[in-house]
């Protein structure tokens, strides 16, 4: 593995020997060591099945939902081992956005944004809730489009709007990290451009980890890039440098379209 010129001080996330296995034998990701820089976008790319989503889902311990999955090694969030935190605590600090937009179909737009608070049984004054909803929707540039239909079901929105709603839902807790798992793979180019623009804005306040199988997207939006292949982190470096001058042969082959 090659890590070049990444002197990351005070990383938001540090991964130490992180491995995940779906069956207890074969490793889906193998001893990943990496640090994630604050207020930047880190892209994880690689061909299908290389373990990029598996790596992402290890960061907020989504794998805990499935008892057969074995995770070893550790993830530190601002210096604290995530296994020492409760899942509720961890997931409030590390938000997640999925491949397909998945707003809760039975909830209104308003309730979708505030869903994290509701699900955890946290009660606030209505004015506080209104504020959180408006701020989160403004953060994803959806406020002007939906402010008059907050009580309508989220599923009436277009795909791109739904995905931005899901990002707003993740932002409502003011997390320190947002994990996005191929968030634009189900969107058209215009909606994709909107989400990408949004991510560039959001990195001022949040640390973003973005899984993508779209190299061009990684090149457009990310500051750092990881290239994964067969469960291993092959190369990790500044995006610009990696795309112009990859050190590993596999990375070069992937970036030049020889496979993937």
């Amino acid at each position: 593995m090659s890590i070049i010129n990444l002197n990351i001080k005070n990383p938001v996330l540090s991964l130490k020997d992180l491995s995940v296995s779906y069956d207890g034998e074969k490793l889906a990701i193998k001893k990943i060591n990496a640090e994630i820089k604050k207020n930047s976008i880190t892209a994880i790319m690689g061909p299908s099945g290389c373990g990029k989503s598996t790596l992402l889902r290890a960061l907020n311990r989504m794998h805990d939902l499935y008892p057969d999955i074995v995770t070893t090694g550790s993830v530190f969030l601002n210096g604290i081992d995530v296994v020492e935190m409760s899942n509720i605590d961890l997931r409030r600090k590390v938000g997640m956005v999925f491949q397909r937009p998945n707003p809760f179909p039975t909830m209104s737009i308003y309730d979708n944004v505030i869903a994290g608070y509701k699900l955890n049984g946290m009660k606030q004054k209505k004015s506080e809730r209104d504020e959180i909803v408006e701020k989160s929707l403004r953060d994803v540039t959806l406020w002007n489009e939906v402010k008059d239909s907050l009580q309508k079901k989220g599923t009436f929105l277009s795909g791109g709007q739904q995905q931005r709603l899901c990002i707003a839902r993740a932002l409502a807790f003011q997390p320190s990290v947002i994990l996005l798992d191929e968030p634009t793979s189900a969107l058209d180019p215009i909606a994709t451009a909107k989400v990408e623009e949004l991510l560039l804005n959001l990195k001022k306040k949040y640390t973003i980890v973005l899984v993508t199988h779209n190299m061009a997207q990684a090149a457009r939006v990310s500051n750092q890039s990881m290239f994964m292949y067969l469960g291993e982190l092959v190369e990790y470096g500044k995006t610009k440098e990696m795309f112009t001058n990859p050190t590993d042969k596999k990375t070069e082959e992937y970036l030049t379209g020889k496979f993937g």
Partner: protein
Amino acid sequence: MMTSEKITKRLLFAASLIIVFVTAGIIFSLVGGAIPVFSEFGISFIFSSDWNPSEGKEEYGALPFIAGTIITSVLALVICLPLAFSTSLFIGEYFHDKKVAKIIGTLVDLLAGVPSIVYGLWGFYVLRPFIVDLGLSSQGFGIFTSGLILAIMIIPYATSITAEIIALTPNDLKEAAYSLGATRFEVVLYVIIPSARSGIVASFILAFGRALGETMAITMLIGNTNKIPNGLFDTGNTMASVIANQFGEADGLKLSALIAIGLLLFVITGIINGAGKLIIKKLSK
């Protein structure tokens, strides 16, 4: 010359046509058979609780049986709801894909296939004496015993459909909730139940429809008295049980009254089943 494809098509069409004729035939004979009693008593046949087969003073009303049917079925539904719902959460969510859920799921399906007469026999020789031992009623026959056996009969039915619908909740919705820090219980409460709601309602409607028409076990346990029951432990009759009990010795106006009750039952269960299936159909779109 007819191609083999055309012949097959026509054969299949003819076979399906038989179903249509049979249904039409049943409705036709039920309506035809019910005409005498309706022309004698009019619509008040449905709302009258008189039942007097003595010649010359004949009076027939369906109300006691409609009441018996509805009371026993509602009672069964009330008993069935919490049990079926928790079992289906167990099978469909908490232990979904686990061995124990598969075993219980198989048992549930097995119970759903037990013939009515077997439930009736068990109810008569085990459940009824138990009710007597508890001191709830002197002979153990009646509405409560019938409702209980009906509940046992519809629980597997409601459980199996509800479990399937619960298991259908999209995984990405559940994961979305987990990613917001929700616990399992909160996911059930705020994600699974709301998104499965109409399906769950439909499965209980279908179970209720089953209870309405259930005959054999009820006939053996309800006590067969032609009056509106006075309470949970009183005896009574349902629409199905009065027909099963009396059709052998009925003729003339009485036979027509029984057929009319059959027609009413047919219409009611038809509406209930139709409503349930409509909701499920809408859901699966």
